[in-house]
C-alpha cells in the first residue's frame, strides 16, 4: 500500500512543474497568444533563480531572504523573457509560432551557458529545507511537498478564479476570443495581452525554478527541464484551458511519466525495459486523444480561444 501512496505523492510533487508551466501558458493563450517559448521561459526562470542564489548564497543573509530573492529573481528573469515575446508578438505583430520557437532556442541555450558555470554546492545546499517547509525532515514521502508545491496549487486555483469569476478575467477571455470586439467595447487589448503574457511567463518560470531547486535538487536537473516545458504545453490541451484542471492533469501526467520507474518495483506486474519508453509516450498520446475528442465533440467551451495564434491590428478588417 505504501508504495502506491509514495507513487501518488511523488507524482503530485513532480506534477507541480507542469502545473506552473501550464497555468502560465493558459493565461497567455487566453489572451490569444500561443507561446511556444514556454520551455525556454521555464529554463530561464530556473537559471535566473539559481543565478541569484549563487550570487548571494554565501553572503550570510538570513536564509529566508536568500530564498525569497531567488524566487523573485526567477520571476523577474522569466517575466523579462515574456516581455521579449510580447514586444515581438503584440507590438511588432510577429508570427507567434516562430517567435516562441526562437525564444525557446534562446532560453534553453542561455540557461545551459549560465548553469554550466554555476556552483551547484552553493545554489542547492542551503535552501532545500526551507522550500520543503513544513514537511522538511520527515522520513516518509510527504517530505517531497513544500511551500512551492502549495504555491503552485494556489496559483492554479487563483488563476481559474480570476479568469472565470472576475471582470478582468472576462475582459481577458474576450481579448483572446475576439480582440476586435474587445477593442470596440473599450478594452485595452495590447495592455491585456502584455499583462497576461508577462504574468503567465513569470508563473511558468517559477515551475523551472521549482524543478531545479526543489523537486530534483540536483546538479543535472537543468538538462532535462526543456522536455517538461513541452509537456506543460501539452497539459494545457489536456486541461481544456482551465487552470484548476491542471492540478488533476499534472498529477495524471506525473503518474504516467514516473510510473515507468515505480512499476518495476511491483512484483505482479512484469515489465521489460522496452515498455518504459512506451509508458513515457503515454502523456503525449493521451493529450492527442483529448485534442481529438474535444474537437469531435466541438463544444464551444472546450475549444482553444478562437483568435489563438493570430495577431491583432486594429485597422485590419
Amino acid at each position, binding site marked *: 500500500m505504501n508504495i502506491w501512496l509514495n507513487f501518488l505523492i511523488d507524482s503530485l510533487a513532480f506534477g507541480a512543474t507542469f502545473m506552473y508551466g501550464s497555468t502560465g501558458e493558459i493565461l497567455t493563450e487566453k489572451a490569444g497568444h*500561443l507561446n*511556444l517559448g514556454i520551455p525556454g521561459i521555464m529554463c530561464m526562470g530556473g537559471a535566473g533563480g539559481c543565478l541569484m542564489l549563487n550570487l548571494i548564497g554565501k553572503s550570510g543573509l538570513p536564509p529566508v531572504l536568500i530564498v525569497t530573492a531567488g524566487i523573485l529573481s526567477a520571476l523577474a528573469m522569466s517575466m523579462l523573457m515574456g*516581455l*521579449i515575446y510580447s*514586444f*515581438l508578438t503584440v*507590438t*511588432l*505583430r*510577429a*508570427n507567434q*509560432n*516562430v*517567435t516562441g*520557437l*526562437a*525564444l*525557446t*532556442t*534562446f*532560453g*534553453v*541555450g*542561455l*540557461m*545551459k*551557458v549560465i548553469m*554550466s*558555470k554555476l556552483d551547484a554546492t552553493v545554489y542547492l545546499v542551503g535552501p532545500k529545507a526551507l522550500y520543503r517547509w513544513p514537511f522538511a525532515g520527515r522520513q516518509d514521502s510527504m517530505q517531497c511537498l513544500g511551500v512551492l508545491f502549495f504555491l503552485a496549487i494556489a496559483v492554479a486555483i487563483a488563476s481559474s478564479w480570476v479568469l472565470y469569476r472576475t471582470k478582468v478575467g472576462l475582459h481577458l477571455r474576450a481579448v483572446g476570443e475576439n480582440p476586435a470586439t474587445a477593442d470596440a467595447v473599450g478594452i485595452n487589448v495590447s495592455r491585456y495581452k502584455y499583462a497576461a503574457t508577462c504574468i503567465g511567463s513569470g508563473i511558468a518560470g517559477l515551475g523551472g525554478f521549482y524543478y531545479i531547486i526543489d523537486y530534483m535538487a540536483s546538479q543535472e536537473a537543468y538538462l532535462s527541464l526543456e522536455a517538461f516545458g*513541452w509537456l506543460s*504545453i*501539452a497539459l494545457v*490541451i489536456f486541461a481544456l484551458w482551465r487552470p484548476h484542471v491542471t492540478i488533476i492533469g499534472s498529477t495524471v501526467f506525473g503518474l504516467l511519466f514516473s510510473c515507468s520507474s515505480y512499476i518495476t518495483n511491483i512484483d505482479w506486474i512484469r515489465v*521489460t*525495459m*522496452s515498455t*518504459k*519508453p*512506451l509508458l*513515457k*509516450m503515454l502523456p*503525449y*498520446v493521451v*493529450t*492527442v486523444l483529448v*485534442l*481529438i475528442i474535444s*474537437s*469531435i465533440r*466541438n463544444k464551444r467551451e472546450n475549444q*482553444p480561444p478562437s483568435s489563438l*495564434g493570430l495577431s491583432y*491590428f486594429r*485597422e*485590419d478588417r
Partner: protein
Amino acid sequence: MSQQSVKLHEPLVHLSKRDTIAPLKAWLIRLAAIVLGLVVCGLVAFVLIEKIQQKPEKIWDFYNAFIRGSFSTPRKLWKFLKNLSILLCIALGLTPAFRMRFWNIGGEGQTLVGVLGAIAVAFYAGDRLPSWALLTLMLLAALLAGAVWAVIPALFKAKWNTNETLFTLMMNYVATFLVSFFLEVWVTNGSGALPKLKQAKLPVVGGNDYLLIILVVLALDAALFVYMNFSKQGYEISVVGESVRTAQYVGINVRKVIIRTMILSGMLCGLTGYLIGAGLDQSITANSVGGQGFTAIMVAWLGKFNPIFMILTSGLIQLLNQGAAQISQDFNVSGALPEVIVGIILFFIIGSEFFINYQVHFRGCGKKTAKGGKAA
C-alpha cells in the same frame, strides 16, 4: 456647428499597413536587422565570455571565429554545405503545409520516423538483400513513415478541424519515444546505442561523402519551386492558404488538398530522414534529428516560404551555428552558445518583419518611415 472646440488626442505613433514595399528596401531592412543582431551577439558573447573567463578578449576575435567556423578548411566548408542541405530539406518539406496555412510544427517527428523507417528496414533486411534493393526499400519505408506521421493530423484537421499546431507538436514526442522503444528492442546489450549498419550506406559520389546529399537537396529545391509556383496543385495550395471560403467557392476540394499536401510534406520530411539515416549516420538515436525540425520552421518562415530564399536563410542559420560553435571551442565556453546566438539573431529578423509590413508615422512628422529593425 457647435461652438465647443473638440480637442483631438493624436497618438504619438501611428501605424499603418504598407500595401507594397520595394523588394530592395525590404531586403535592406532585413540586412540591417541581421547586422544589428550580429553586433548585439558580439556584445553578448563578449560579456558572457568575459564574465566566465575573467580576461577580456578583443571583440574582433569573435567575428573572426565566426567566419572561421564555416570556411577555414575544406572539411568545415563541406560540413557547412551538408548541414545547410539537411536543414533546408526539412524546411522544404514544411513549406507546402505552411503555404496552406497548415502549421505543421511536426517536422522533427516526421523526419525522425523517416530515419526510423529506413533504419528498421536496414536492421531487419540488411543481410539478405543486395545493396541497391536495400537502399530502395529503405527509401520507400522512410517516405511511407514520414507520410503516415504527417497524414494523421491532416485527416483530423480535414474532418473535425482539430488544431494542427498542437497535434503535430505532440506527434514529435510520440516519435521520440517510439525510437527509444525500438532501440530498447534492437539493442540487447544494454548500451542503448545501435552500432553502424554498414550495408545501409548510400554510395559516395564525386569523392565526397556529402556531395550526393547536397545535390539531391538542390534538385528537390528546384523541383519544389516549380511545383509551388507553376503547377495547378501548387496554386490550389495557395488558394486554400489565402482563404478556405474562396477555395470552396471555386470548387477546390479543401479536404483533399489538405490531405494531399500533408502527404507530400511528410514524404519530404521522411526523405530527409532517409538522407540522415542512409547518407550520414547508418544508425539512429532519439536525437538523430537534434531539433533541426524546429529550426527548419524558422528557416521556412524567414525565407518567406520561397524555396530559393530558403537556401539563404538555411545558410545563415548554419553560419551562425558553426560560427558560434567555433567561438565556444576557441574560448572554452558552454557548447550551448550557438543556440543563444541563433536566438538573438532570430529576434532581430522577426522584429524587422514589422518594419517591412507596417509603416510608422510619428506625431507631427507628417509621413516619416522608421528605419531598421530594432527588437527586444
